[in-house]
């Protein structure tokens, strides 16, 4: 569990964001991620209360598919910016096991370096991380039954 996680997609986001030194442009980058996220990945029928993540200013749905103990997330929000953020989270941390998800911490979110963006904190990327971890644990437990 303490082995270094291989977070390819995450590293790509971090790298891209590091290249942008203008905050406004970093903000636009998130919007771009949101715009590019294929809505088709998130089936309309999944937009139900059971998949809602609570505590956000706009609705956020997150689902996961488990394959060989690894979690593959997708997320959706009506708000583009929130969709951008949730997409960064779900793409970054897909493919991990429940234990690996648990090993993630606040620093992983902080390294995305969106701290200066109000919206980032508003929608609570930390809350999203906690939500992914909860989903990771939930299915692990279910599997142990």
């Amino acid at each position, binding site marked *: 569990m303490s082995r270094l996680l291989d977070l390819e997609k995450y590293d790509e986001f971090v790298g891209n964001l590091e290249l942008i030194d203008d905050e406004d442009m970093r*903000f636009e980058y998130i919007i771009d991620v949101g715009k590019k996220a294929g809505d088709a990945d998130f089936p309309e029928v999944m937009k139900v209360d059971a998949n809602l993540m609570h505590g956000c200013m706009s609705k956020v749905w997150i689902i996961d598919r488990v394959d060989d103990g690894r979690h593959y997330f997708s997320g959706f929000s009506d708000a583009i910016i929130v969709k951008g953020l949730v997409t960064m989270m779900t793409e970054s941390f897909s493919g991990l096991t429940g234990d690996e998800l648990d090993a993630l911490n606040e620093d992983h979110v902080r390294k995305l370096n969106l701290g200066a963006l109000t919206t980032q904190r508003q929608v609570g990327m930390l809350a999203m991380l906690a939500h992914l971890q909860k989903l990771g644990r939930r299915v692990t437990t279910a599997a142990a039954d």
Partner: protein
Amino acid sequence: MSKLSALTEPFGTGGNSVQAFDVDKVRADFPILSREVYGKPLVFFDSGASAQKPRVVIDCIREAYESYYSNVHRGAHYLSQRATDAYEEARVIIAKFMNAPSDKNIVITSSVTESINLVAATWGRKFLKEGDEVIVSEMEHHANIVPWQMLREEKGIIIKVVPVRDDGSFHLQDFEACLSSRTKLVAITEVSNVLGTRVPIKELTRIAHERGAKVLVDGAQGIVHQGVDVQALDVDFYGWTGHKLYGPSGVGILYGKADVLESMPPFQGGGDMIVRVTFEKTTFQDPPHRFEAGTPPIVQAIGLGAAVKYVEELGMKSIAAQEHSTLAYAQQELADIEGYREVGTAPDKAAIISFLVDGLHPFDVAAVLDRQGVATRVGQHCAEPLMDRMGIEGTVRASFGLYNNRADVDALVAGIRKAKEMLS
């Protein structure tokens, strides 16, 4: 002391000619307005959530702590007397501002939320029985819904809801249709915090009183835009909150008619609200002190007194005229934006604009505005039932204060255009 801008040319609004003021001079009274946000000048359109504070208020707070702070109503020493005088003087200033018959009508609370809860917990618990009806409107803030729901839970009262029309307007006939012989209280907002709709409180109160019902007004958004004359309105209760009237956080007001306040049991128990305490029996003070248990928000009340003096010097009529003119300008400029839609277009509304932009999520619009330095509020504005009724999930709200000028409006309009560009 107060460095108010000189009044300028006379200015017509609704027939009466009042003095307008030079907004740009007034802006200089508010230190925060000269700050930047993300490197852009701050444009503050969130005064409906809480207003910014003029220097006189900030200085008054500092002065209180630096030169005469003490607890009130207790010490026999000089500072205690000074602080008590200042605190009670604030009550007098507030009473006069509201045209209350006496400062004894003014209970100092911690917020309008507490003011309303106080009435529900004392007057409501004592006088409302199962089946009694409380009328509210569809556009209430949660602060004027949840306390009555809690009382419904406890007592089995009935809550009746006056609908608003599609344009957000409020009609007395809709209200009259809710009245019945069981109506005991009408608890209603004076101005909707989302739509800006004004409720004709004076007429409504006359009608309610004819039916023997009492009237409580949630004046949180009313008093800041138009002042209040509680005797002219003849309401039984009028609550408001200091931080929206350019005063400190942490202080609110409840006005009550003398006989009504006297009929009420205490709210909370503690020091200052009692005459005599033994373990067997305790006797309570007269209003307003009966309702002020414990150390009150001393410096906050004093600071609110300073805020009231500030708006009085500008003149509530001038403030209304100024806001009205900025609102009209905003409505005209915003209407030019394609896909822009104002939510709540009742005639003669207060200076609050809720809006949507076709195809864009309000959260995204507000976020882009924020990045341009334009502070608005987005979401349900603590008025979820109103959102449900309007069939929307939320809006972006630009709420105006006395300091908003046309340059602010221009920044808002440019910000929305930019949002459309970035998000489409």
